[in-house]
């Protein structure tokens, strides 16, 4: 590989892993010891928000409630993200294993995996793997059970509190925070909710030790990450890469020679234009991502890209709070009006104010993050919005 910084890693999909041994040895350790190792690794949530995993586990473990839960968030809906599907397809035992270790730490007897409706075809094989997992737990005399719950086509259910509402049989409408899930989650009980990838990394940290994970990445973004690469690239697919690369390094590897922009983090993420490739780091110190990396070459209209995202948000907004319900519609109608020449180009500034208002006032991450792609696309590709 010409680009020597872009290091391919093989932690997640490594098949050479004695599942039972890792589980057994980890279960022999004290909870404090487990939390400290995870803390030491620097692992942050891989779903996009990046909360330190060890702290989630620790806060939940400190709650006095008898009933607590571990939930695996497999409601992967961010445009351009498909890594969780691949992980669940290839290494489901490691996901279950991560849940089992968390269950020990927080003292949970029940775990749930919330799988998006679009991935129902994975269910028969997952159930089979789950049965194998349960028999291993029986052998080790571990009292913990996992149930798979199916979603039904709603992006917003990837938001943790909306996911709990959905699991409880309601509309997937996010709750007010605080309280956070570590205090009041599923059934209003303390709950750890982790992304699929986060749980696998947790499991692998207990296999290899925190040091191996910590060797990779940067101070703010430790370890490696599974990236979903799509768009104008000769090699779309799933790649596990060390964190800390710049967009330029990424484009050197995955671009088609004519990349004009990279959307990092999906529709709710940020658009990085060519002039910023060099100084933008992919990670928590630069542009964070749940793994979605979409490349656009110079043949693409960024107006169409933004319009597609806004249409997505308009449909997927749960409609509960006004800034998001009305804001998404108005942003879409607004850029359409500018494009048709019915509104002057300065109207874009008003729309940016609206996006900013949504960032401050929307109830959950969906409405708050619309501004990310809106600002980064409108600011960097203004001409394409107007002409």
């Amino acid at each position, binding site marked *: 590989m010409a680009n020597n910084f872009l290091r391919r890693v093989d932690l997640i999909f490594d098949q050479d892993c004695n599942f039972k041994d890792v589980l057994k040895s980890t279960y022999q350790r004290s909870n404090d010891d487990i939390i400290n190792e995870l803390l030491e690794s620097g692992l942050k949530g891989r779903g996009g928000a990046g909360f330190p995993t060890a702290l989630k586990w620790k806060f939940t473990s400190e709650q006095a409630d008898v009933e607590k839960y571990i939930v695996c968030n497999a409601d992967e809906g961010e445009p351009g*993200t498909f890594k969780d599907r691949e992980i669940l397809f290839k290494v489901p035992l490691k996901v279950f294993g991560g849940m089992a270790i968390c269950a020990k730490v927080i003292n949970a007897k029940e775990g749930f995996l919330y799988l*998006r409706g679009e991935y129902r075809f994975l269910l028969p094989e997952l159930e089979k793997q789950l049965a194998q997992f349960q028999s291993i737990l029986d052998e080790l005399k571990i009292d913990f059970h996992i149930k798979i719950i199916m979603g039904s*086509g709603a992006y917003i259910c990837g938001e943790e509190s909306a996911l709990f509402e959905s699991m409880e*049989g309601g*509309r997937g*409408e996010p709750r007010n925070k605080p309280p956070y899930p570590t205090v009041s989650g599923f059934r209003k009980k303390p709950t750890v909710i982790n992304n699929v990838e986060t749980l696998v990394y947790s499991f692998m940290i207990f296999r290899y030790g925190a040091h191996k994970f910590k060797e990779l990445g940067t101070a703010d973004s430790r370890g490696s990450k599974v990236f979903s690469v799509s768009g104008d690239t000769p090699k779309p697919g799933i790649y596990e890469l060390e964190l800390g690369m710049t967009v330029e390094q990424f484009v050197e590897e995955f671009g088609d020679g004519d990349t004009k922009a990279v959307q990092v983090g999906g*529709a709710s993420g940020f658009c990085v234009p060519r002039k910023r490739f060099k100084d933008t780091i992919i990670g928590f110190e630069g542009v964070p991502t749940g793994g979605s990396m979409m490349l656009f070459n110079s043949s693409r209209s960024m107006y169409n890209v933004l319009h*597609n995202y806004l249409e997505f948000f308009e449909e997927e907004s749960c409609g509960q709070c006004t800034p998001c319900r009305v804001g998404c519609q108005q942003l879409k109608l607004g850029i359409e009006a500018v494009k048709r020449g019915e509104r002057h180009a300065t109207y874009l500034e008003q729309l940016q104010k609206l996006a900013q208002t949504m960032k401050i006032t929307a109830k959950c991450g969906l409405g708050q993050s619309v501004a990310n792609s809106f600002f980064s696309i409108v600011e960097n590709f203004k001409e394409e919005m107007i002409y």
Partner: protein
Amino acid sequence: MTETKELVKRLADKHGRSRESLIPILQGVVQEERFISSETMTEIARELDISAATVYGTATFYSFLDTQPRGKYVIRVCKTISCSMKGKHLIMQELEDLLKIKVGETTPNKKFSLLETNCLGWCHKGPAMLVNDEAYTELTPEKVREIINEYMNK
């Protein structure tokens, strides 16, 4: 007992009668009948002892819980950006020509419904679509013709 009553009772026996059983029951209805009628919603409300408005509220929130009649095979074509860039409109055109219906419609023989959907998670292999639960990727108009032919003969 009517057919609806029987179906709802059978699903409630399987999934339970708590509020948490609601979505699995609704999903079960869709699996069997492809949509949830208002009669079925009322019956579920009675069986679970919750209000019909609650059932309606939950059912209408989720895009895969159809509340209007659909065909035996529901086709959902991904319209999100990566698939759109890889020629999703050609796939849609082909499907409309083959089935002689527009997006949102169901064929007169109730065999196919044609819908659009948001990101299916196959961005690296677009364009993609679902036929009921089955995913089809890297579609071309020819491939679509083969797939639909197969379903037509089922």
